[in-house]
């Protein structure tokens, strides 16, 4: 709770301060990209190692430095690219996997990757690489894929389990999705097969819903999730609901709707219920509020009083697309075991200016947020202010840690990959 309050206090100041960087003199401009200059914390620098191989979703970096990139759509029939760095640039050296998607992860000698309905794995060979002629093993199949919140991000624990988010193909489980005034369904039938995080075995073939466990429910959509290896806990960044004003203009105005609800950092507990679609988190009131589709009036909690709450609240609609617990030794001590979050950037703030489009860092102590977040890398949008997401030059989507502790950032607008390093 204290952590949430800390976050909220900062958020409040953030909301009042129109341009956070205008008052922040500690940041430094870093190596220019093809078309933008990133703004980073002192001592850090960023270099563009590839200017655009496609719409890069998530990325993973192997112990030998190979960079695995999951493409949203297959390119030349292949949905996974392998890049090798040489003289500051990373070139594509391998392509495989005939499916597009988002999720990718390396664990115990295997590369795991997802389409929007299935999860596959590829065995790494003696050279610590994927033989491109190898047929992948399909380990999970038949997950809900209805074109909304369809990406299947994944992470693995140290006991042979894989966690897959199955986003709800809906905004708030209305009778008519995204229809102004349409009421919500109780119970929401979507929750049986989506709107949560499922746990499967990492090594068992062709698992379907009946083989997995609904690990936690009431989570609208997650793109960024990560296993915290220091505490052995799952964390996930929820994408909060859209359109409070558009759906219920009598209860919310456009300004409130642009800030509500928070993007929630969840410590995902087994059996947890985080309240979607019935509840949303209001950072100003520091509690879960009953959604208007279910009779809420923007203030009452109703059934939301007992649901699990976030461990940290970020500004609304920023679109958290990647979460990474940093375990490297390269960055200063305060970054160790803290969380980096890549924000894809908002669209549901219109007609107000769009926000996000950055990478933030949230410090952790003993497995809990221990302070306010800092904007770690900014400038991806390539303008001081944009009204439409289409005007952003880049949209951060994936994060990975290299063997030397460097941080990699992928972009699914142009497909740029940055490598961020620290030198005192």
């Amino acid at each position: 709770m204290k952590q949430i309050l800390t976050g909220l206090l900062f958020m409040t100041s953030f909301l009042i301060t129109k341009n956070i960087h205008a008052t922040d003199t500690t940041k430094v401009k870093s190596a220019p990209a093809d078309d933008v200059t990133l703004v980073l914390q002192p001592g850090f620098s960023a270099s563009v190692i590839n200017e655009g191989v496609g719409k890069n979703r998530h990325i993973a970096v192997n112990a030998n430095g190979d960079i695995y990139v999951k493409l949203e759509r297959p390119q030349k029939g292949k949905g996974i690219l392998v890049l090798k760095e040489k003289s500051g640039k990373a070139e594509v050296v391998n392509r495989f996997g005939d499916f597009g998607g988002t999720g990718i992860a390396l664990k115990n000698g295997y590369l795991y990757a997802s389409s929007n309905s299935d999860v596959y794995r590829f065995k790494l060979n003696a050279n610590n690489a994927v033989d491109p002629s190898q047929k992948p093993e399909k380990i999970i199949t038949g997950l809900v894929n209805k074109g909304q919140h369809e990406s299947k991000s994944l992470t693995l624990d140290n006991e042979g389990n894989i966690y897959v988010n199955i986003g709800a193909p809906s905004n708030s489980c209305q009778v008519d999705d995204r229809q102004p005034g349409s009421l919500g369904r109780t119970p929401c039938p979507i929750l049986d097969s989506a709107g949560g995080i499922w746990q499967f075995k990492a090594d068992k073939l062709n698992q379907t819903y009946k083989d997995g466990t609904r690990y936690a429910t009431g989570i609208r959509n997650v793109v960024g999730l990560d296993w915290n290896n220091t505490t052995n806990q799952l964390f996930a960044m929820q994408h909060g609901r859209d359109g409070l004003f558009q759906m219920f203009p009598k209860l919310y105005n456009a300004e409130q709707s642009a800030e509500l609800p928070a993007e929630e950092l969840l410590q995902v507990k087994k059996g947890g219920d985080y309240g979607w679609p019935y509840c949303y988190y209001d950072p100003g009131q520091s509690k879960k509020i009953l959604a208007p589709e279910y009779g809420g009036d923007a203030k009452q909690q109703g059934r939301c009083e007992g649901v699990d709450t976030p461990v940290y609240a970020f500004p609304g609609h920023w679109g958290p697309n990647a979460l990474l617990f940093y375990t490297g030794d390269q960055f200063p001590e305060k970054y160790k075991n803290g969380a980096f979050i890549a924000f894809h950037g908002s669209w549901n703030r219109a007609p107000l200016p769009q926000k996000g489009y950055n990478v933030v860092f949230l410090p952790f102590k003993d497995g809990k947020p221990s302070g306010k977040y800092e904007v770690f890398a900014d400038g991806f949008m390539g303008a001081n202010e944009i009204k439409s997401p289409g005007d952003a030059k880049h949209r951060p989507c994936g994060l990975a840690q290299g063997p030397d502790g460097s941080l990699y950032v992928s972009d699914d607008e142009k497909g740029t990959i940055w490598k961020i390093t620290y030198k005192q």
Partner: protein
Amino acid sequence: MIGAMMTALVASSFNKRDQDQGDLKASIERGSKVYETYCLSCHMQDGSGVPGMNPPLKKTKWVEGPKKVLTNLLLKGLTGEIEVNGDYYDNVMPSQAYLKDQELADVMTFIRNSFGNKASRVSVSEVIKWRATVK
């Protein structure tokens, strides 16, 4: 006599055109208000949409093409992936059938004449005719 008739004809055709232009302008103005209320949050102020989610309304046959197709789309809504000018979009477009015939005609006329688009206006009678065929 003939000259006078010609003048009258030319004048009346000018008046007709002025009238049409005035109607078009008024419809676009009304349509822009409808757009701000019901469409802008997804399709954005400049009609550029949201990459991967909500398609742009700029320079696409979905908007500038046959009026009946556009009217049906608004009345029925749309789900599933669509391709617009080489990019793919997938989200739920809710039915806009709750809008009045005049509002639908105006908002379609607005988007067909905004964001760099240039296409004919949609009339109320067309909306009424096509709404009757949509179930």
